[in-house]
Each structure stands twice: as C-alpha cells, then as structure tokens.
C-alpha cells in the first residue's frame, strides 16, 4: 500500500476507535427505551384513510334518480378521502357468488371523510347493475374497495378550466366534482356539458342547478328531444367552442360511442394529448362465433379447471365459476388482475396496457383478455 492513513498523531488511536464501534452500539441499545413498540404510525394511519382497502359498508339509503337509475348511499366502516372523479369497486354476494364492479363515486370527498358516507349512482344496465336495481335493499352489507383511478383534476398539468363532457350515467364523477368544488376539496373551474337523451333522463338536475357558481356551470344537451330550455343534438365542436374559454382541459366520461364522436370533434378543434382525459369503460363481450375452452386456474396451491366462453373475458369465466379472483378497473389499465400465463392463446380487447416486462415473461390482464384456446394461468388470490 502506497500510503498509510493516519488521522490521529498516534496511529494506534485510530485502531482504538475502531475497537469501540461494537461497545458503542451495545451502549446505545442499553440506553434505549423499553416502552412497547408502536402498533402503528401517524403517516400509516393517514394512508389508511386515503387507501382504506376493502371494507364492509352498510347500504343506508336508496334513492331513485331517474326511471332507470338509483343512488346507493353506504355507511362506511372506515373513514375515506379521495379525489372527486375516482371510482370504487363494489362487491356483493349475488346468488351465492361474489360479484364486483367499479363505479364512480357520486358523493363528495368530505362527506366520506367527515360523515363516513359514500354514494354510487348506477344505471340499470348489465348483470351486477341490474341486480342492484332490482334486489339491493337498505340494510344490506356489501364491500367497498379503495378509491381508484386517475380521472380527477390534476392542478399541475391541467388548465384552470375543465370542460367536462358527460354522457348518460357518465355524469356521476362530475356530480362529485361539482360538490367538491362547492365544499372546497377541489379547486378548479368546471364547465359541464351534460348529454342526456331526454329531459326525463337528466340525473341530479335540481342538485346540479343548485351548485352553480363562479366555478361551476352546467349546460344540458338533449339528443333525442327537441326542447327550447336546453341545447339539442350531440356535443359538437361548435357547442364546446360556445361555452369554453381560450385554454381548457377536456375530461370526458360516457359510452364508447360518445368517445368516438368526441374524438373527431376535438381533433377538428386541434385539441388532444395532454389536454384530454377520458374515463375508461369496462371491457364487455366480443362478437365472435361461440366456442368453449377449458381454463385451468392456479390460486395459491389450489387448482381449478373451469369452462371459458370465448366471447367473454378470462376474468368473467373465473367469476362465473365462482372463483374469487382480483379485479378493479375491468378495463385493462390498473393491473390488479395481473396473472401469469402458463399456456394458451388469447386476444386483448383494445390497447395493450401491460408493462413491458409482463409481455416478456408472459403475464396477462384477464379482465381484458379473451380465450382463443384452452388456457392455464396462475392468479393472485382475490378478496377473502
């Protein structure tokens, strides 16, 4: 060695100090408190309010909003705070099997935080939604998951004004936003263009009108009814231009057909990219000739073989067979259903939203994958 490190004038002092490292650490241990270790921590407790996980909730109130839409208000067992626009997953026992679906929250963030209440507003359409409409009753116990999704205002990148475009039951996240703006838990200006078929189909009209302020404005647009009190037709670029300021962010929530129309209108206005946000819709059935395959599913050390209809997703096949498997967005984007493909062929509905390494190591999102052959997959455990 070229040189000798010496800090003390007498090099042996350096050695002495080294020898003391262990006794020093022992002494620090000796001097420490023997008070019981904390069971939890403040930050972790706040985290639980932001992400409470699956919790039991009691259905406290059901109100009819329109002829085919009801609001279900739950009493939460844990406090919750979220961003207006987010959704929760609702789980219930339907004829002996566990079924769950994501629904946008229609109540305000502070109602959940301060009163422990949360509402979803559901239109009668689809398996679980129909079941809710016809069967759910006050006093029922269901399970509500974490507030999820990114369909909320993002102050750092969004314009000061949001033009909200709601189609049909796509009104729910905006109703939450309008209340949030009024109560101060969200801070932006919302101009809401709300498309409904007829006057009768407008949900929350009275409530929305009462929320109108400098920061919230609502314009109703009827597609199937001519009515002088409202705008008529579809939500076109002309209509957007009529109400929107110079710079704005578009947030849209509605059926696929509305998005297809809107995309063209926005493109013609030169608006896109970072200024447009659309809430995803759950993956539905595909239109192909029916075939039924065998699906082998590993959950921990259990193995099941179930039937899979190629017109429905792999997730639905597992749920139909009564398996408890994870899901959240049911649109391919959240990765919550992430499962390892052992063998078999499949097709993805819409864009592939998996991570790069998932493709490489053969992971799939069952919520947006249709079986094209017999398949074998390893799935994380679902709700328990």
């Amino acid at each position, binding site marked *: 060695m070229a040189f000798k490190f010496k800090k003390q004038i007498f090099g042996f002092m350096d050695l002495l100090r080294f020898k003391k490292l262990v006794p020093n650490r022992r002494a620090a241990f000796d001097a420490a408190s023997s008070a019981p270790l904390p069971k939890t921590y403040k930050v972790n407790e*706040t985290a639980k309010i932001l992400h409470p996980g699956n919790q039991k909730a009691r259905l406290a109130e059901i109100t009819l909003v329109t002829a085919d839409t009801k609001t279900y208000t739950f009493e939460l067992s844990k406090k919750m705070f979220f961003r207006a626009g987010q959704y929760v997953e609702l789980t219930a026992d339907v004829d002996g099997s566990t079924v769950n679906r994501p629904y946008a929250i229609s109540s305000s963030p502070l109602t959940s935080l301060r009163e422990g209440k949360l509402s979803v507003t559901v239109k009668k359409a689809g398996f679980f939604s129909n079941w809710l409409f016809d069967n759910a009753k006050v006093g029922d116990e269901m399970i509500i998951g974490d507030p999820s999704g990114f369909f909320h205002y993002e102050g750092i990148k969004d314009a000061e004004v949001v033009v909200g475009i709601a189609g049909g039951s796509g009104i729910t996240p905006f109703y939450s936003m309008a209340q949030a703006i009024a109560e101060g838990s969200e801070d932006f200006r919302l101009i809401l263009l709300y498309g409904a078929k007829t006057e009768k189909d407008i949900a929350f009209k009275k409530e929305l009108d009462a929320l109108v302020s400098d920061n919230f404005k609502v314009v109703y647009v009827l597609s199937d009814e001519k009515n002088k009190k409202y705008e008529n037709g579809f939500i076109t670029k002309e209509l957007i231009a009529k109400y929107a300021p110079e710079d704005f962010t578009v947030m849209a929530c509605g059926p696929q057909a509305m998005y297809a129309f809107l995309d063209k209108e926005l493109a013609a206005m030169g608006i896109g990219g970072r200024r447009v946000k659309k809430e995803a819709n759950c993956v539905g059935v595909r239109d192909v000739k029916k075939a039924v395959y065998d699906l082998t599913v590993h959950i921990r050390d259990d193995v099941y073989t179930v039937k899979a209809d190629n017109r429905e997703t792999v997730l639905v096949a597992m749920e139909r067979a009564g398996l408890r498997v994870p899901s959240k967005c049911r649109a391919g984007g959240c990765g919550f259903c992430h499962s390892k493909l052992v063998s078999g062929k499949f097709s993805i509905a819409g864009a592939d939203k998996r991570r790069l390494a998932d493709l490489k190591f053969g992971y799939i999102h069952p919520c947006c994958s249709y079986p094209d052959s017999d398949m074998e997959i390893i799935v994380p455990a679902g709700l328990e």
Partner: protein
Amino acid sequence: MKKYDAVVIGAGNGGLVAAIRLLQGGAKTLLVEKHNIPGGFATSFRRGRFEFEASLHELNDFGTPDNAGDVRVLFDQLGVTDKIEWLQIPEAYRVISREEKIDATLPFGKQAFIDKMESYVPGSRKSMEKFFELAEEIRAAQAYSNSVNGQTDQKVMLSEYANFVRCGSYSVNEVLDALKMPKRAKDILNAYWCYLGAHCDDLSFLHYSSMVIRYITKGAAMPKSRSHEISLAMVERIRELGGDVWFNTEAVKIRTGADGGVEGVVLKNGDEIQTRHVIANCSPHIVYGRMMDKVDERIVKETNARKFAGRGFTMFLGLNKSADELGITNHNYFLYDTMDTVKQYDLMKTIESNSVQATVCLNRAYPECSPAGTSMMYFTTLYMSDDWANVKPEDYFKVKDYVANKMIERFEQDTGCKIRDSIEEISVATPMTYARYCGHPEGGIYGYESQYWDGLMPRLLMMAEDHKTRGLRFAGGFSMRLSGYSSAYFSGDITGRQTVGDIKREG
C-alpha cells in the same frame, strides 16, 4: 396444515434474493407477498403512453460482463442475469448546489473522474488519488470479509488491510479532511450522500467510499424494462427452482413456540403455514411491534434504539417533448441548497424547507424508453423527519401539489430547462403512498438510518449478536446491509444462505 422449510415474508428485493438462495440450498420455500406483483419498491407502472420506473435511478455495482461488479456476480450465481436486458448509465452525475455555486458533471471511470475533478478544482488531484486508493483497499477488505463469511482474522486485517481498520471508525468528512481534500472537491465528491440518507458527519467513510468506488469504477446499470423486469425475472427463477410464490397474501403473525423460536406464519385469511424459519423482508419495528406475541425486552430496546431513515417523495413526469427539445442533457441530477450536508440534512426535515432533489431523465440512458418525441423524468426527495405526519387528510392532495410544484420550479430554475408546459402525465408518490405500498413505518424508503453508532461497520461486526430469535432473520432495507437495491440484494443473499445453514443445524 401446509408445511415449508422456510417462509419468506415480502417479495421486495431482499425477499426475492433470499427465496432463491433458500431454494438453491435445497429448502422447500414459500414466498408470500401482500401485493399482486413482486418487487416492493422495485416495480413500474403505466400512465397513458408511459411506463414509469417506480424507484431505481441506477443499479450500483453491476458493471459489465468483463468488468463485473458484485451485484452482477450475485445475479450470475442466482441465475437471473441473462433473463434481463441491461443498459449502461452514461455518466456518473451532475451536481448543482446553490450556496457554493457548484454545477459539475462527473464521468464514470477513476482516471476520468480524477481528471474532471482537477479541472473543476485545481490542486485536488493528490487527495482524490488518495481517496481512491483508500476506497480500493476498503473494497478489498470487504471482499476478504465476505470470502470468510464475516469471520475475519484480526491479524490478516491488521497486516493486509490496516487502512481499512484505521479509517473504519471515522465519518466521511473526518477522513476527507485528513486527506486534505480541498473543500470544493469534497463538496462535489459528497454529491451521492443523499443516496445513503445520512449526512457526512454521521455517515461512515467505509460505507460511503465503498459505494462511490463501485459507482465510479463499475459504472451503473438499469434493466431495459424498468426494475419490474428484475422482479419478474426473480419470480421466474424461484418457480424454476420449485419454490411457491403467493401474491395477494399478507402474513399477519409469526407464531413462536416454547423456545421463543419460530413455529409458523399466520396469513390474513387465518390460514397457518407451519415452518421453523422465516425471513422477513419488512422492518423489525413491524415484526416485533405487531406480528409477534411475546418479544424479549432486549429486542424491544434494540428496536426502539434505531432511527428511521428518510421518508420518500417522488414525482413522475411524462413529457410530450424529447429530452433534446427540453434541453435536458443529463441522466442524473442532484440539486442541493448547500453542500454542507449537516445543514442540508436539517433543511430536509420539513415539507416547507426541503428543496433537495435527485432527478433522473431515463431517456438519457435509454432514448427509446418512451415514444419518439417524448421523455420521462422522475424526481425524488427524502424527508429527514416525520413532518408528513402533520398533514391532515383533507390537506393531503394540496400538500402533494405544493411539493410537486416546488420540485418543478426548482428544476427549471437550477437547470434552465422549461418542462412545465410539456407535462402530459404526472403521478406523485408521498410518504403516505410508500407507507401503504410497502407498509414501512412513516413511509420510510431507506430502512434504518446509518447514524454514526449504527453504521455499516458496527452492524456487520454484530451480525451474529443481532440474531436473537431462533428461525427469524431479516432481509432488505431494514436489515444489516442498509438500504438501496444492491444492499437489499446482498442482505437477501446473506440471510438466505445463513438460513440454509440454520435449517441444516436446527432442522
């Protein structure tokens, strides 16, 4: 009841490596992870057209096939290196500090580093050469210690690695001062300190210098498909070796027997797994505080004695312009107020006063990591106190935006690059996010702080003494090797192999 030779709790970096080591040692192994994917912090997530890396800035000590670092050697032994596509990080770092008006960009390679430093700080060469010589010897001493499994012979240490022992008890600053390193060179050299999360009066020189020399001589690496690729590769390997991996499976209790040793693990659904050996990839605070019924008073004291290291905050940006268009020239930026690390450490205690950031533009290492015409950045800071505990839930989203805004402003001011109007996607992780995601106390991402008394050296010297419960060992950021990817991997390697030995001895 199901029975395993060993159960690993948590599939973070430490847990994944430990599981492979157990299987390689012939143990029937179950790895349980509370999330639906492996990796802990080592993961990625998608937003729009971007796939963000969740944590890894650069993997230290990996090197290339012909200049392999210790992590590569470990990965070779585990059988995972070739399952992953690797990239090399182009340069060491750019450090900007306001108080000293430093703006320096340092390259990898010892000679290049020393030369560049001399150009910034004329007259620094001699002290830098000495620094590297010392660091080299420290690394050699560590290799010797590893080769004898920590049972070092004092005579060998004193004759072969005397400098290691002589500087072994000193802090970074004490040694650099003894080497008569000019202040400005010290300031530039200390830029990596926030990666270890203790200031340079506390931080052990052995620890810091062995990290720096690994960076500078081996370069830094990155998996192409983000750290999710490493985590999935490890799971693949565990399954190849016949191990079981259960996701969405939280361990809630470690059951002990009459001898106080491990008898089983209870899962959240109430199922119990019978085992005499557990490797916990979570903190002793959680394990002893919540997961075990009877804990010896000495263990409680030892756990109470430790200090939590930094709580994390990260902002991820997907930008709709390329790095070139935005003028982002570097892969890795450290932005400080001051290079007085004690002062800086204090400023990092509150949300209000902390402006430090370690920022990465991944496109500078891997241009194709995002679509053409776009780029991706992530900005990380640490909080050196529990200030986020003061944030009320109703203020949470506002505070999050406040910090994110401050980070963007700081980056724009210090580098002159304008990024705000190009933000297409943004995601922010706070201590609350980390507290939820990995479950660590206070949202810490760095394990226990490497304070002077609890630095790397005394921890290694007391490894045997710290093991107090039969059948229970720790891996990951809260175990003996401190935090960071490489350290977490090494800790998994050591505890995995130690547990194989335990199983042979104790059954």
